[in-house]
């Protein structure tokens, strides 16, 4: 899918607005007015990265992110606005939920990638095509067979020990594949950051984003497989 016009080359792609209270100019995405310190509405179009004043890079130090999260929590939480007007209380509710949503998304490496792709219009969340990656087709087929055999053996009271051992091997194998995908994602995340630093062109970025999307599809598929096996083993 082509990258849409929405992609911004800079972090501050959101225009400045007038403060609702004192009318001073407030930079796009700012939490508070620089002049009168009143909390500002959440700006449509502002992304989670800019919420934390971070560039759209995929490597984020977890300690640093958490520190920012705590600092912003102190400032934005509804506890601070109990005595304020209903309008401000509402703004606090909007902004603090945005903060929590942003932190929840950005703290996980996979979540970061998913969010980036979604924000750049490359991939709509939740629209994973649940198709087996071609090179895995045979293994998936075998796995499904084994799972069926196990279920049948359970139902008929047959010997499940050998089947379980076979499935345990499959479990390990797919967990290994999952770890590989995660490693690939981490590598591509680093590539992306390098590309941003080098201010590379659209074509390079598009290619990386497409690759990320494929990896996410693959990851989702394998993760479902692992979950399925785990569930059957635990039963």
């Amino acid at each position, binding site marked *: 899918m082509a990258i849409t016009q929405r992609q911004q080359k800079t972090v501050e792609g959101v225009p400045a607005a007038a403060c609702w209270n004192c009318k001073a100019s407030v930079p796009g995405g700012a939490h508070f007015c620089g002049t009168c310190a009143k909390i500002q509405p959440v700006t449509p179009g502002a992304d989670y990265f800019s919420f934390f004043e971070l560039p759209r890079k995929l490597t984020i130090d977890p300690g640093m992110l958490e520190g920012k999260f*705590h*600092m912003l*929590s*102190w400032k934005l*939480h*509804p*506890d*601070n606005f*109990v*005595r304020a007007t209903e309008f401000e209380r509402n703004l606090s*509710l*909007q902004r*603090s*939920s*945005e903060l*929590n*949503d942003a*932190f*929840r998304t950005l703290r996980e490496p996979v979540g970061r990638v998913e969010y980036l792709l979604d924000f750049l219009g490359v991939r709509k969340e*939740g629209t994973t095509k649940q198709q087996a990656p071609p090179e895995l087709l045979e293994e998936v087929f075998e796995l499904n067979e084994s799972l069926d055999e196990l279920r049948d053996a359970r139902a008929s009271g047959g010997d499940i020990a050998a089947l379980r051992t076979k499935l345990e091997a499959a479990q390990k194998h797919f967990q290994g594949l999952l770890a590989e995908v995660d490693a690939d994602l981490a590598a591509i995340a680093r590539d992306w950051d390098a590309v941003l630093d080098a201010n590379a062109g659209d074509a390079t970025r598009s290619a990386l984003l497409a690759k990320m999307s494929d990896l996410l599809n693959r990851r989702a598929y394998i993760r479902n497989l692992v979950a399925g096996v785990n569930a059957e083993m635990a039963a």
Partner: protein
Amino acid sequence: MGRVVGIDLGTTFSLIAYTDAQTGEPKCIAGSNGSVQCPSIVSVDENGKILVGDAARARLTTNPDRTIYSVKRLMGRGVADVQDELKIFPFRIEPDGSNVIHVRLGEKTFTPPEISSFILRELKSWAEAHFGEPVDRAVITVPAYFNDAQRQATKDAGRLAGLEVLRLVNEPTAAALAYGLHKRKRGYVAVYDFGGGTFDISILKLISTSEGDIYQVLATNGDTHLGGDDLDNALMDLARKEIEKKFGVALDPQGEQVQTLRKALIQAKHELSSTDSATIKYSLGAKGTYDRIFTRAEFDALITPIVARTMAPVKLALADAKLAPKDIEEVVLVGGSTRIPLVRKTVADYFGRAPHTELDPDQVVALGAAVQADILESGVKTMLLLDVTPLSLGIETMGGVIAKIIPRNSTIPASAEELFTTGVDNQTAIDVHVLQGERELAKDCRSLARFQLKTPPGPAGLARIEVKFLIDANGILQVGAKDLRTQEQHVVEVQPSYGLGDADIEKMLEESIEFAEQDFADRQVIEARTEAESILVATEKALRDTGAAGIDADERTSIQKSAADLRAAIAGTDYKLMRTRIDELNAATNHLAETLMNGALQTAFEGKRLDDVGD
């Protein structure tokens, strides 16, 4: 604006607390009998008057059909949900065809929020008596695992009691606040809250930042139908079976007799926390006496499966927090049931460390609520609570499958946006069904609410309505909708699946004002009587005093007549009349008082002790 308080609205006991402005320490407020614990029991007397607490508890055995305990178990639930409860709890639910629970107490029926509001009113009166000022705002605690409907019901109860609910705080988090204030600890904390009716486990991270302390909940889990009540029921089950076997008597679970037995069993349960055996002697009248010794070992064996049930949520919460038991640095026990040695041992063994019990497990939640109330009221920003929503929020999609939009244990406030469109041509209403729970299918989750999005007719897929789901700081859902084509904000009327709509609440608020007036009148009567009695005693004493010899017979008669009139007044219930008679007696004894005073001064000058005279 009146005072602010923190309230623990518990299944078995409720408490009210405030933060002392001087010391900054939270303190529980006692009722007129000196106890800080108000039994969560409500009874209606023969005149329709509402009794709460100790006064109601006595009536559990004398008037069980007009008395209710553990109403918290009914909050936020429909008639269909509680059918299992009815087998073991004597709830008299009126079968009126609706799903809203109406409990019969005597001649009237009440909804669970109304009954809870009576308890809140009682606590409110304790606080007002203590401060000598009105109390109109409160932080009320709820089990962390309470769902949206249960939270809304609690908020409704507060409103009906005349309290503005500043915040609903989760019980384990409140306990952590009180504990953190007490200990100033840092690190990972597990709060194991085993109360009368509910069980909660919360895993928190206590962090020190330059701004102050953050109490961040990482994960919470629990069972809203697991508590001390279940331990009592296990004992009750055993006792009833034995009684039937030995005496051929089948005790009716809804009757009076069984309440007396229950009381005795609870007493034994308490004793077994500190002794190795406890005895029950329960009279069956002519059939004999059920004389039974329970040993600690036997009790432990009986309750082991119930205590074991608490460990499943503990494991799930730790998994969600991505921690192992050994990572937890402090374990806090909350709730009366944690006094049981087996419970303490189970928790200590699991976490590999002795749990903390320095703070009274019965009071700690109320104290924490008072701390949060103070934070909100005073604006003192040295502590911040970051709590989570316990259940995933989802919407029902095609085929009855749930699409999760806000995952469980998300820090609140939390939000999600979903885009809706029409599925068929000329469709003008889009139905949205919101649910809470972890299962895959809508039928296995808890229905929270339904609403409809209106859109003008057009081809399928043309409509674009963005719905924003927001879980606020109380853990309660708010919904907003915007038509992306017109940029218009839609008003979304959310129909709660359980509990009361606004119209119901308004009606109840009107009725509750009656109760408020009744309460006010009652208090006036009590205060007038108290004052009258003390004046009568003082008057008699004064008349017997040697210094009163100088009073002539006419005056004496007049005083005695006023006293008699006052005695007649306090035998009734008209407080205005009592006040009038008090004033009259005061006027009648003015001269007597002066005479005694002069006599006292004279005696003082003559070297006699002043306290020989008068009071």
